[in-house]
């Protein structure tokens, strides 16, 4: 009897629950214009849930949370912004599923390196008219930011920041090795020969590798470094078309040779993954860590820790020009609008007003370490007053990734990085390995070209 009742009750209760769990059970009453904003960067309500002044927040999560709070608190158009926070690693998986399921957020954050994949599939709204309607001036975008969102003459997103490849420096160790100028500034190498000479001198003086490299499970490290060195020689990985990579150029060989020499001579660290690499740098196991702008805040904080290897000895600068022209890998966080993501003109207007708000608040985000995408902010005294920022201004002009016309950039970088890594770390034959990487990437891009229809292809220049 007891079993019968329990079984029926369980079955009945669950069926009733499912029947009454209506799709809109959790929908909030929305008397005002509500727009959703899908983003990563984590959620940190514990610390910044009620902060509406970005100046009082720290870190990417804190500042983006404070910006959203500020928009909700200050906009006079009755707009309610609903952030939807997704873990970074799963972000694009979920976004893809949401697009297929037509469960579209009004505004999405994405990387400029994937922007063209979405634009190519006609999933994004061109925003030029929208920008004009709310007063966003693309003339103020930095050259790098403009390249990052302009596809075939149309802008598909608001550039939110530029993040780039830097040299993070342990000034204390460099000083110990005598690699500083008489004025105390760091002696920056200006050629591959100078770099090798300085790195050898450093190792002889300290017994430590000059570079901390991220060599384990970090294909992007090698891809970004290779791109940087190739661009500095005036080369490009896609000289003929956006579907045909060329890894046999002299520029690629010279870049590889330099990296191989550094690694084989022990001038770069061995066996560090991303997190271990940072730990090694913070612990003073090497003088220079090649990593991104996003670490400036954390590393600068370490420089204030008493007893730290970085104590009063952290500095950073854009990847130095070792060849004929300045260039450093760069990517962007951009804000885009999916087609159909806003249900009516009021929501569309609300989404554009939020973009305008972010455009106006570009300086606040710069405190994360990422660079502003507006020239006027880059040139502002407030920005230049932030630690190390004046030195980073050239990134706004010379930062470059793969051309936007190249599809599937994340996958391309992954294949490229794996190939370069296997040559440098495992001594795989250069010609055969590069040829294999070339084949894989070209096949990938030719498959992808079915989505391009020739409409969005821009010149394949970095």
């Amino acid at each position: 009897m007891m079993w019968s009742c329990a079984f029926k009750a369980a079955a009945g209760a669950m069926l009733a629950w499912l029947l009454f769990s209506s799709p809109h059970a959790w929908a909030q009453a929305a008397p005002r214009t509500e727009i959703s904003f899908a983003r990563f960067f984590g959620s940190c309500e514990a610390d910044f849930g009620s902060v509406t002044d970005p100046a009082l927040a720290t870190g990417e999560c804190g500042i983006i949370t404070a910006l959203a709070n500020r928009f909700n608190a200050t906009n006079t158009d009755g707009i309610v912004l609903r952030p939807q926070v997704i873990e970074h690693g799963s972000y694009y998986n979920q976004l893809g599923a949401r697009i297929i399921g037509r469960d579209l957020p009004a505004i999405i954050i994405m990387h400029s390196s994937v922007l063209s994949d979405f634009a190519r599939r006609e999933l994004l709204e061109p925003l030029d008219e929208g920008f004009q309607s709310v007063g966003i001036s693309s003339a103020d975008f930095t050259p790098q930011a403009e390249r990052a969102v302009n596809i075939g003459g149309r802008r598909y997103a608001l550039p939110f920041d530029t993040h780039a490849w830097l040299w993070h420096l342990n000034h204390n160790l460099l000083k110990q090795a005598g690699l500083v100028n008489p004025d105390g500034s760091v002696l920056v190498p200006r050629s591959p020969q100078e770099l090798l000479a300085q790195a050898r001198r450093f190792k002889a003086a300290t017994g430590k590798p000059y570079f901390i490299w991220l060599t384990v499970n970090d294909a992007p490290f090698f891809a970004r470094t290779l791109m940087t060195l190739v661009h500095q020689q005036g080369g490009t990985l896609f000289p003929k078309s956006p579907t045909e990579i060329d890894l046999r150029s002299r520029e690629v060989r010279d870049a590889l040779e330099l990296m191989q020499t550094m690694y084989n001579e022990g001038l770069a660290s061995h066996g560090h993954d991303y997190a271990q690499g940072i730990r090694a740098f913070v612990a003073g196991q090497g003088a220079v860590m090649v990593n991104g702008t996003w670490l400036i805040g954390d590393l600068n904080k370490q420089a204030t820790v008493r007893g730290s290897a970085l104590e009063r000895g952290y500095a950073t600068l854009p990847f130095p020009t070792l060849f004929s022209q300045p260039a450093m890998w760069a990517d962007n966080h951009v804000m885009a609008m999916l087609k159909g993501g806003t249900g009516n003109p009021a929501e569309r207007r609300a989404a554009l007003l939020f973009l305008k708000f972010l455009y106006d608040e570009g300086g606040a985000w710069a405190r994360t370490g990422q660079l502003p995408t507006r020239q006027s902010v880059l040139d502002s005294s407030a920005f230049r007053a932030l630690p190390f920022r004046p030195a980073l201004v050239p990134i706004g002009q010379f930062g470059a990734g793969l051309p936007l016309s190249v599809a599937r950039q994340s996958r391309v970088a992954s294949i490229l990085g794996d190939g370069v890594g296997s040559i440098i770390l495992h001594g795989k034959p250069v010609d055969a390995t590069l040829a294999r990487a070339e084949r894989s990437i070209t096949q990938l891009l030719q498959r992808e070209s079915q989505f391009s229809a020739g409409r969005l292809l821009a010149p394949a220049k970095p």
Partner: protein
Amino acid sequence: MNARVHPGRWFDHLILAATIALAVLWMLPLVWVLLLSFKPNALLMERTDILFSPPFTLKNYGDIFNTSLVFRWIGNSCIVALGQTALVLVLSSLAGYGFARIEFRGRKWVFAAVIAGLAVPQTSVVIPLHRMFADLGLHNTYAGLILPGLAAPFGVFLMTQYFKAIPKDLEEAALLDNASRWTIFVRVILPLSLPAQATLGIFTFLGAWNDYLWPLMSATRSEMYTLSLGLASTQSNFAQSEGLGFLMAQAVFAAVPVLVLYGFFQKYIVAAVAGIGAK
């Protein structure tokens, strides 16, 4: 006189020692995770090998509890995991009984089709499932989170095999007492299948509790996140370097309910893993 130990016992001791050593080795990462969860993130950015010496902090756990939605996420996980478990038990028992005891045309083929479902990975059906649920407007609902887990071929298989092993004499005796098929199922068969139900229930609960992929696809409003999804959403982009302690605290926090469940149902879980079914 008895100083000599039988060689077989030496071997037993050796096996025991090796087992203990392997168990300790296996436990080390878990202990490491637990200890790191009490360390300040700033320190962990520099080194992760100071496990037993200060400083210690509860801030990582405080940050979890201060996330306003964390208890909502726990509630959601409970609803989804318990709901899915209850329904899987109901459906698998009914289907299993049907396959084990009721003759109908095409039974073997239908059973084979159900079992074939074991070979279909979850990831391969995510997109069509997502589209279907979107058309039905079921995303961001409990129904949307629970229903996909109800297709449980393993449960049907397990219950079918278990019911087949129950002597038919018991049912025939009940039939002689004029019991209906439903009464026999509920009052005779189900109580006898408690060990199998427990095994299936535990595995279903653990699967639902730990599931990440489907909630990620279906729950896009943070108030509908499950615990695993919600905790992941709080991670910064470079959590492994700048928020390692918080990451470890999240892992511990998410595991606690499962560990509690394990404490209560250890007997059944061990039996289930051993593949023998508790008697």
